[in-house]
C-alpha cells in the first residue's frame, strides 16, 4: 500500500503459539491485513490540491444532488414519478468525493438502486435523470429503467441495479475487462451495508483478490438496510474487516466529509490502478426513509437529528465560509442556479414524450427483427 501515504497502515501478525509446550509447532498461524482510516475534519482542500473553484464545484455538485432529489420527492407525491424512489440525501459526499478520484468517461462506475447522486456527480444532466424518473424517452435509460436503473455509456455509469448484491460480480467483470484490455481503467463498485451479506459479495471479492483486478468495492454504510441496522444483520458490524478474508487492504472513512472521501478514494483508486483490489467502508447516513413509502419508525428522531448536524453539505458550506473561500451571497447564487437547473429538468421531463407502445420491443436484443411471440 505504498500509495496511502497519509493514512496509517496497520499490519497485524497473529501468530499461532504452541499449546503450552515448546518446539512442536506444526504450522504457524499467521494473518496479515492492512487497514487505513480516513477520519473527518482531517484534510484541507489544499492538502488535496483543490483550488477554491474546485471546492465550489464540489459544493455545487452536492447541492445539485440534494435539490434534485428533494424535487423528485415532490414529483413522486404528484405521481409524476412511480415505482420505488430511493433518495441519496445525506450521502452526497460519497458520490462527489469519489468522482474526484476518477477519470470520468474512462474509469467505470456501478452501483445499486440508490443511484441518482452518483449519476449527477458524474456529470449526467438533471434533464436526462429527471426524464428517466418521469418514464420519458429522453430519460437516461429511455424510460425503460426508472429511478433504480440509471445508465450512461458516455460517463461510464454501468447502472443502477435493483437486485441487492447482484451487481457486485458484474463490477468484478468490468474490472476484469479493464485489466484484460490493459486500458488502465478501474471500476468503482458501490454497495450498501445490506449487500455485504449476499453471497455475491464474497464470491466477487475472492475472484478480484485471486485475479488481482482493478476494482474498489465501496460499502456505503448508511447504517440501515431498509429497517435493519447493521448490527442486526451482521455477525461483525465492522464491515471494512471483510477485506481480511481476501488478503486485501480495507479502509474506514468518514462519509460526511467530502475531503476524507476524496483522499480515501484517491488512495484506493491508485491501488486499483496497480491491480490491487480493496474494500472501503464509508460511514454515512440516509436522512430519508429507505424509499418513499418508508416512515422510518425503526430509528429515533434524536438519532436522525444528531446525524443531520453532520450534514456533508452544511459542513462544506461552513468550511467555505469559515475559511474565507466564499461568501453567503456566492453560495446563495449557487443555490439559485442549482434550483433553476432542477426546475428546468422538471419542465423538460414534462414535455418529453412517453415512449411509443411499440418501443416495448426495443432494446431486448441488439438484433433487429427478433421474432417475439405475439
Amino acid at each position, binding site marked *: 500500500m505504498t500509495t496511502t501515504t497519509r493514512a496509517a497502515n496497520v499490519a497485524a501478525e497473529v501468530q499461532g503459539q504452541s499449546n503450552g509446550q515448546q518446539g512442536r509447532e506444526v504450522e504457524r498461524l499467521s494473518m496479515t491485513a492492512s487497514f487505513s482510516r480516513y477520519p473527518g475534519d482531517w484534510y484541507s482542500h489544499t492538502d488535496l490540491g483543490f483550488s477554491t473553484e474546485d471546492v465550489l464545484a464540489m459544493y455545487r455538485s452536492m447541492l445539485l444532488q440534494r435539490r434534485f432529489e428533494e424535487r423528485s420527492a415532490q414529483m413522486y407525491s404528484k405521481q409524476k414519478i*412511480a415505482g420505488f424512489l430511493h433518495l441519496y440525501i445525506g450521502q452526497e459526499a460519497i458520490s462527489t468525493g469519489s468522482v474526484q478520484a476518477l477519470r470520468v468517461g474512462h474509469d467505470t462506475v456501478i452501483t445499486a438502486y440508490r443511484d441518482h447522486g452518483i449519476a449527477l456527480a458524474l456529470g449526467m444532466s438533471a434533464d436526462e435523470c429527471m426524464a428517466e424518473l418521469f418514464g420519458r424517452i429522453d430519460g437516461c435509460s429511455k424510460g425503460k429503467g426508472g429511478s433504480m436503473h440509471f445508465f450512461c455509456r458516455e460517463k461510464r455509469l454501468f447502472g443502477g441495479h435493483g437486485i441487492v448484491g447482484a451487481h457486485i460480480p458484474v463490477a468484478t467483470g468490468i474490472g476484469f475487462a479493464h485489466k484484460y484490455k490493459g486500458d488502465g481503467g478501474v471500476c468503482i463498485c458501490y454497495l450498501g451495508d445490506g449487500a455485504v451479506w*449476499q453471497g455475491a459479495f464474497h464470491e466477487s471479492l475472492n475472484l478480484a483478490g485471486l485475479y488481482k483486478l482493478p476494482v474498489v468495492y465501496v460499502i456505503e454504510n448508511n447504517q440501515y438496510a431498509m*429497517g435493519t441496522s447493521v448490527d442486526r444483520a451482521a455477525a461483525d458490524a465492522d464491515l471494512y474487516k471483510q477485506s481480511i478474508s481476501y488478503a486485501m487492504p480495507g479502509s474506514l472513512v468518514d462519509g460526511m466529509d467530502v475531503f476524507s472521501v476524496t483522499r480515501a478514494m484517491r488512495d484506493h483508486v491508485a491501488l486499483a490502478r496497480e491491480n490491487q483490489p480493496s474494500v472501503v467502508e464509508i460511514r454515512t447516513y440516509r436522512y430519508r426513509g429507505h424509499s418513499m413509502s418508508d416512515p422510518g419508525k425503526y430509528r429515533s428522531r434524536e438519532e436522525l437529528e444528531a446525524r443531520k448536524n453532520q450534514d456533508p453539505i452544511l459542513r462544506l458550506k461552513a468550511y467555505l465560509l469559515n475559511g474565507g473561500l466564499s461568501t453567503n451571497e456566492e453560495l446563495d447564487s449557487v443555490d439559485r442556479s442549482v434550483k433553476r437547473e432542477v426546475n428546468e429538468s422538471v419542465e423538460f421531463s414534462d414535455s418529453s414524450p412517453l415512449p411509443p407502445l411499440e418501443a416495448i420491443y426495443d432494446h431486448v436484443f441488439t438484433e433487429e427483427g427478433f421474432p417475439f411471440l405475439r
Partner: protein
Amino acid sequence: MAQLQLREAVRAALVEEMSRDADVFLMGEEVAEYNGAYKVSEGMRDRFGPNRVIDTPISESGFAGLGLGAAMNGLRPVIEFMTWNFAFVAIDQIINNAAKIRYMSGGQFSFPIVFRGPNGAAGQLAATHNTSVESIYSCFPGLKVISISNPDDAKGLLKSAIRDNDPVVFLESEFMYGMRGEVSEEEDYLIPIGKARIAREGDAVTIVGHNKSYWRAMEAAEMLEADGYYAEVIDPRTIRPFDWDAVVSSVRKTNRLVIVDESNPFASVSSEIAFQVQSRCFDYLDAPVRRITAKDTPAPYAKNLMTYYLPSAEDTYQACRDVLYLD
C-alpha cells in the same frame, strides 16, 4: 364472514397456525421489527416474540437454506421472500434442496416448509422486479405451487400449506395485499391444495386465470355477459398439482378455452394448460386454445409501456370473442 384485506388474511393464517403449533416460525427480511415490507406480519413479532418472528440479513440463499435445514430437523418454517424476484439468488435451495432431498434420501427426511411472498407485476419497477415465477417452480417435481387471488383463498390455502408436509411455494401479490374480501370465520378453515374454484359458471367459453389474472378473467367475463355470452371462470388456485378435471370438464362443456397468465409467454403455465387441454379435450375444442400473457419482453418502467406489457381484460374479452367467432 369477516371482511379482511388480503394481507390480513395471510396474517390470520400465519397467526392461527403459529398459535396452534409451536414448531411454526416466520423468517424473512423485515418481517419482525419493521412489521413486514408490505405489513403482512404486522404485530406478529410483538405477539410471538423475536425467536419465532425473525428478521434476516439480505441473504436469501442463506435463509432459504436455513429454513430447509430447520424443516429437515423437525420444525415447520414459513420463509418470506420480500418478493419472489429476490428468490432467484436462492432458487438452487428451492429447486434442488427442497424439491429433491426427500427423494434422494429415499423418503427419510421431509420438508414441511412454506416459501411465500408476492409474485408478478408490482407496478413501475422495471424488469427485475416484475417477474412471474409460477412456471419456473412448477417445472420441478417435488414442489407444490399455490397462487392465490383473494383473501379467502389466501387464508384457507396458506393454512393448508403450513400443515402440508411437503415444500410449498406460495404466491401472493403486492397489488392485491390491500384488496378486501369476505373470509370464512369457520374455525380451522382449510382449503384443500389442488382444487380449483369455479368462480363463475357459464357455457360459452372457459376462462382460466390465477392470481391477479383471475380478476382480468372476471372482468372479461362481465364484458362478455354484456354481449349475451356467459363465460365460465376458473381460478386454479393451485398450480401444482393442477386440477385438470375442473378445467377439462368445463372445456368439454364450453368447447373453448382462454387462459390469462401474467407470465412471459414461453413455456409458461398457460402453455401447459394448453397442452393438457388439447390432449384431453381434442374432440371437444371448437377453436384453438387462446392465451393472454405478459408481452414477450422484460417489464419496462414507463407507465404506458407497463400497462401495455400486462395482460388486459380487453384483450381477454377479445380473445373470448375470437374463439366464439363473433367478429
